C-alpha cells in the first residue's frame, strides 16, 4: 500500500521534554492511524515535525514524496494540522475563524462559501455560526478546529490530541467525523491518551518516552500478549503498586480502574490465578477471563520493557 507518511529514526530532544528517541514507522495512505501514549511520550513533538514546524535533529521524515526538512512548502500545502492546544481566535466568531482559515489558505471566494457551509454542516456547528469561539464548549471548539484544519481539503490530517478535555458524547461525534473522512480517502494521523479511542483506529503506534513500544492494528496488537488475560474484582477497589513484582507464575499484574488485570500463562486456571493474586492483594474476590485491549498491550510493554526496547510483536 502507498505510504502517506514515513518516518525513519527520528530523534529530537529539547531539554528532555517530550523527546523522541529514534522513532520509525509509516502510515498507509487513506488510513486512520493513531499515536497512543501518555503525556510526555513525544506525540506533540512528532506532530510538530510532520507539520514542518520543527526540524528533527536526527532521522528522516517524509510526507507523501516530500522531506519535512527542506520541502516544507508542498507539505504545508497538503496537510491540515490541528495543534494540541486550542489555537483559534477566541474573540472571533465561528464563521470568522473559518473564514480567516480559508483566506490564509488561499481558498478562492467562489468556492469558499460552499466549503465553509459544508464544513459547518459536517460538524453540525451551523447553529453556532455567529457565536464567539471563546464561548463554545470544549467539544465544539475542537470540532471547529478540525474544520479549520480541513478548509483546504487536505490529503493528510494531523490531529494532535483532538479529544482531550472533550465530553464523551462529543468525543463520539468527533470520531464519527474522522470515520467519515476515512471513507473519503483522507489519511488521518491522530494522537490520543485515551485507550478506548485506540480501538477506533485502523492501526496504532504505541509511544512511550520517545520510543515505539508497539505497532499494529488494535486486533493484532492484542493478540501479541503472551498468555491469557484475567480480570480480578473485589468488593472494594483493588490496587497493586506499580513496582509490585507479580507472584511467580503470573506474567504481569496491574491495576485497571478499580480492578486488577493479571496476565497468566495459557492453561492456568482461574481459581489458581486468584489464589496467587490474593497473596499480594488479599481483598481480591472474583476472577473472570478478560478480552485484551490496547491498554493492556501498552501496560504490558511498559512493564516488560520499561520502554527501553521494542518488544517483539
Amino acid at each position, binding site marked *: 500500500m502507498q505510504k502517506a507518511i514515513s518516518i525513519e529514526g527520528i530523534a529530537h530532544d529539547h531539554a528532555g521534554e517530550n523527546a523522541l528517541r529514534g522513532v520509525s514507522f509509516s502510515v498507509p495512505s487513506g488510513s486512520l492511524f493513531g499515536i497512543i501514549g501518555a503525556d510526555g511520550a513525544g506525540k506533540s513533538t512528532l506532530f510538530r515535525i510532520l507539520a514542518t514546524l520543527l526540524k528533527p535533529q536526527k532521522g528522516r521524515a517524509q510526507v507523501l514524496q516530500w522531506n519535512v526538512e527542506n520541502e516544507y512548502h508542498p507539505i504545508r500545502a497538503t496537510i491540515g494540522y490541528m495543534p494540541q492546544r486550542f489555537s483559534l481566535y477566541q*474573540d472571533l466568531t465561528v464563521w470568522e475563524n473559518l473564514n480567516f482559515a480559508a483566506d490564509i489558505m*488561499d481558498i478562492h471566494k467562489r468556492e469558499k462559501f460552499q466549503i465553509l457551509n459544508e464544513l459547518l454542516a459536517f460538524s453540525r456547528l451551523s447553529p453556532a455560526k455567529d457565536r464567539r469561539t471563546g464561548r463554545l464548549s470544549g467539544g465544539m471548539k475542537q470540532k471547529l478546529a478540525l474544520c479549520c484544519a480541513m478548509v483546504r481539503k487536505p490529503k493528510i490530517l494531523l490531529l494532535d490530541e483532538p479529544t482531550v478535555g472533550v465530553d464523551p458524547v462529543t468525543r463520539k461525534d468527533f470520531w464519527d467525523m474522522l470515520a467519515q473522512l476515512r471513507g473519503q480517502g483522507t489519511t488521518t494521523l491522530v494522537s490520543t491518551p485515551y485507550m478506548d479511542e485506540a480501538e477506533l483506529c485502523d492501526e496504532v503506534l504505541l509511544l512511550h518516552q520517545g520510543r515505539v513500544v508497539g505497532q499494529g492494528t488494535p486486533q493484532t496488537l492484542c493478540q501479541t500478549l503472551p498468555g491469557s488475560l484475567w480480570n480480578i474484582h473485589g468488593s472494594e477497589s483493588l490496587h497493586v503498586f506499580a513496582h509490585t513484582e507479580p507472584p511467580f507464575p503470573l506474567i504481569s499484574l496491574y491495576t485497571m480502574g478499580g480492578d486488577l488485570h493479571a496476565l497468566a500463562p495459557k492453561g492456568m486456571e482461574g481459581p489458581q490465578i486468584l489464589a496467587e493474586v490474593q497473596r499480594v492483594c488479599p481483598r481480591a474476590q472474583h476472577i473472570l477471563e478478560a478480552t485484551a485491549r490496547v491498554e493492556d498491550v501498552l501496560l504490558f510493554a511498559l512493564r516488560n520493557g520499561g520502554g527501553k526496547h521494542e518488544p517483539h510483536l
Partner: protein
Amino acid sequence: MNLRFIIAMASKEFRHILRDGQTLTIILSLPVIMMFLFGYALKSEIDNARIVLIDPNPSPASERLAEALDASRLFSLVGVVPGGNPQELLVEYRASAILQVEPGYANNLQDPPVQIGAWFDGSDPATATTLRNSLPAFLRKHLSAITGNKTPELVSVNVRFLFNPEQKSALFFVPGLMASILAMICALLTSVTVTKEKESGTLANLRISRLHSKEIIIGKLLPYFVIGSVTGIFILAIGRIAFNVPINGSVGFLATATAIYIVTNLAIGLLISTVVEKQQHAMLGALGITMMPTIMLSGFVFPIASLPKILQYLSEIVPATWYLKIVRGVILKAAESSTLSTPILVLSGMGFVLLILASRRFAKEK
C-alpha cells in the same frame, strides 16, 4: 506579495481590536488623560501662588507693592505681617513664598538699592523654581514702574525662555507626549498582539498557511499604524483646542516624520515579540525599551545637556530624541524642513534598520 492575504490579515486584526472594547478605550483615552494630566495637574506655570509679605514698617509704597502682588494673576497675597520667622510663616499660611521688605523700604525706593528678601517653599520644587524665576522679574517691573527708570538691584537669576516667553508648559508637553504616547501605543500593542498569537498557538497556523512572513507582518501592523496615526492627530487636536498649541510649521512634514516614527516603534514592538514568548514579558519589554527612554532620555522631561555623558550618548540611539527635535521644530519654531534634515534622516535610518532586523528575525522564527 499578495494583497488579498494582507487584507485578510489586517481585517482580522481590526476585528480583534474593535472587539476588545477595554483595550480600545484605554488606547483612545490614554492621550486625553495624559494631555489633561500634563496640562493641568503637572503644569509648571503658576497660578495664584500663595505669598506672604513681611512689612515691618507699613508705608503707602509697601501697600502699593502688596496691592500689585494681589492684583497679579500669578500670585495671591494671603497675608501681610509685621515680622516673623519665614519658615514658620510658610507653614502657617500654607504659602509658596515669603517676601520681606526692609523697614526703610519707602526711603530706599528714592535711594536704591532696594533689598527684598524672598524665601520659597522648597518642598514643591516645581513651583519654587518657577517662582524663583518669575518673582524677581515681577518685582523689578513693579519697582521700575513706581520709581521711574531706576532698576533696583535684586539678587535673582534671570532665566529667559526662547519661543515660549510665557513659559507655557503646553508647548513643552505636547511634543513630548506625542513622542511618548506614540512610542508606547505602537511598540506595546504590536509586541503584545504578536506574542499573543505565539502564546495561543495561532502563529503556528499562520506559519503553515500560504502567507509569506512579509504579508503577516504588514497585515498585522497595518491596523496599529492606523491607530498610531489617529492617536497622533488626536493629540495635536487636543493640544490645539484645549491648550492652544498651534502647528506653526509644515503639517505635511510633521505627518511624514510621524509616520516614520510610528513605523519605527512598530518595528521595535515586532522585534520585542521575536525575543520574548509571553505577553507579560512583551509588555514589560516594550515599556522598558520605549516608554522609559522616551520620557527620561529624549529630552522630554530632562534636558539632554543636563544628563550624564553616558546617558547623553544613549539618548542619541533613542528614536524619540530625534522625533522630538522634529516635532518641537515644526510645532514651536515653524522650522524649515531643511533644518530638520538630520533628525529625519537619522529617524528614517533607525526605522529602516529596525524594520529589516525585526522582519528577518520574525521570518527566521517562521
